[in-house]
């Protein structure tokens, strides 16, 4: 069974923020809410500057789903983690539980209190009727239903950000690392490397 995943190649990301703008534009996201962001470290240090585009990683064992008191999250069969804004009470627990800082909260009302949660939907809409006005208003475009890949990945000029079925993403990752000369079987990467303290 396919599982949809993002992968951002920090060797290729150039901190252009094209993905951020594309996402905001496509889904008409209000000011103050960013479903995607680009983080840069060692900015300006030659050879050491690295950037990474981050959004919801659509975890298989999503902590946001575990912590939500109203059980508003659900995981589709293709692994995309979505939530029901009609159920969300904006408590923010998902933000505390998320390892990636994906949940976003805008301010609303006369007192500017926190609104309901918004996050990356992998451009797959939400629980409302597919491709309906309601769905767009609440969750943005449903590009997956139209057979397209998420807007951020489609707009990435260096193809640092790729999205799609995990097995296909994995093949691209392996191809790129092999081409760079990295032996992935000997050199752990990502969480594995972090957890091993390497």
């Amino acid at each position, binding site marked *: 069974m396919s599982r949809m995943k993002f992968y951002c190649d*920090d060797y290729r990301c150039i901190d252009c923020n094209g993905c951020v703008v594309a996402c905001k534009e496509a889904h008409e996201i209000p000011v*103050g*809410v*960013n479903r995607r*962001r680009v*983080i*840069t*470290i*060692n900015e300006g240090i030659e050879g*050491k500057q*690295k950037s*990474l585009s*981050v959004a919801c990683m659509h975890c298989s064992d999503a*902590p946001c789903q*575990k*912590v*939500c*008191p*109203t*059980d*508003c999250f659900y995981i589709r069969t293709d692994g995309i983690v979505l939530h*029901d804004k*009609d*159920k*969300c*009470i*904006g*408590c*923010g*627990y998902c*933000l*505390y*539980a998320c*390892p*990636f*800082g994906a949940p*976003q*909260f805008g*301010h609303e*009302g006369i*007192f500017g*209190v*926190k609104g*309901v949660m918004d996050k990356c939907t992998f451009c797959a809409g939400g629980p409302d009727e597919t491709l309906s006005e309601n769905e767009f208003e609440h969750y943005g475009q449903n590009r997956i239903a139209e057979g397209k890949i998420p807007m951020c990945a489609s707009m990435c000029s260096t193809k640092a950000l790729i999205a799609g079925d995990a097995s296909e993403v994995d093949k691209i990752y392996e191809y790129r690392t092999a081409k760079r000369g990295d032996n992935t079987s000997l050199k752990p*990467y*990502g969480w594995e*490397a*972090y957890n091993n*303290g*390497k």
Partner: protein
Amino acid sequence: MESKTFWECNKAYILTALGLGVVGFVFVGFLMIMDWGYLIQYTMHALIGDTSGVLTAPASELEQMINAAFGPAYNTVAPEIIRASNERQEYIWYVFFAEIMIFVFLYIKNGRVTPTITRPNDTVQVLTSFQRAVIWLNIGMISILVLTGFNITWGLRSEGGDIPRILREFHELTGLAWIAVWLVFTVIAAKDMKGWRKNSTFRHFLPGSFKPSKRVIWFFYAAMGAALCFSGAMIITLHPSSLTHADVIQFRRVLLYLHFGASVLIMFFILDFVYASAVSVKGYLKGLWSGSYPREYLEQVAPDVLDDLKKAGRQ
């Protein structure tokens, strides 16, 4: 004058410390999955102004990237938040059940004190309008905070939606307003302070003196209220944008946990106060509303209040 033993003088403190010690030992030792070593070190860092949660310089580029993008040390506090928020839904009933059992035991043992009133019209004004306003504002706001707080905790039962969301927003706004009321009540109920000042200067202090059991309630109200006000206000105002997320998320996690813990403890002691005022003594609430009590009531139940009022020349 009858001399009291150390045990008799300090029974309330010893039993409270013992009870909390046993419950704390079970919680910390067997139920919680918090990384205490990290939390202690983090608190030290936070006290000197570094709330980022990065306790040691990153050892690799990857760790540096994780710290910058997601915030450091996810496995230290966040899993505890997930555990606590889930288990609060399931097990917080047991806290109340245990407390109600304590009240049942006390009721069976001590019964209800019913003062004999033969002259109901001979009353003494005990509470000023200001004191009553603060007390009833406090009661009202705490009731709202408890109900709207449980609305979040037990969201699974309401299944969310607009009304629970509005109640959650109301919890935040009421909480902000309660900070002032908590502060004023903490000051006027600090009866031990009266010895330091003349009654005329501090006429807004509640009359009477603390018995140890009541002093414990006041202490927990003041301490846990401070924790709730601080953590609540910070959680509301420290609203991270997508770019400041990594800098504040660990601080917010710790604050939320503080909020969880303080809310359970303050609830325990507030319920204690409710039992002491509404159940154990007849006529207490009526006086709390009107501000005056029959003189015989005070002579039998609260002679210290009568003494205080005499000293202050208020009756």
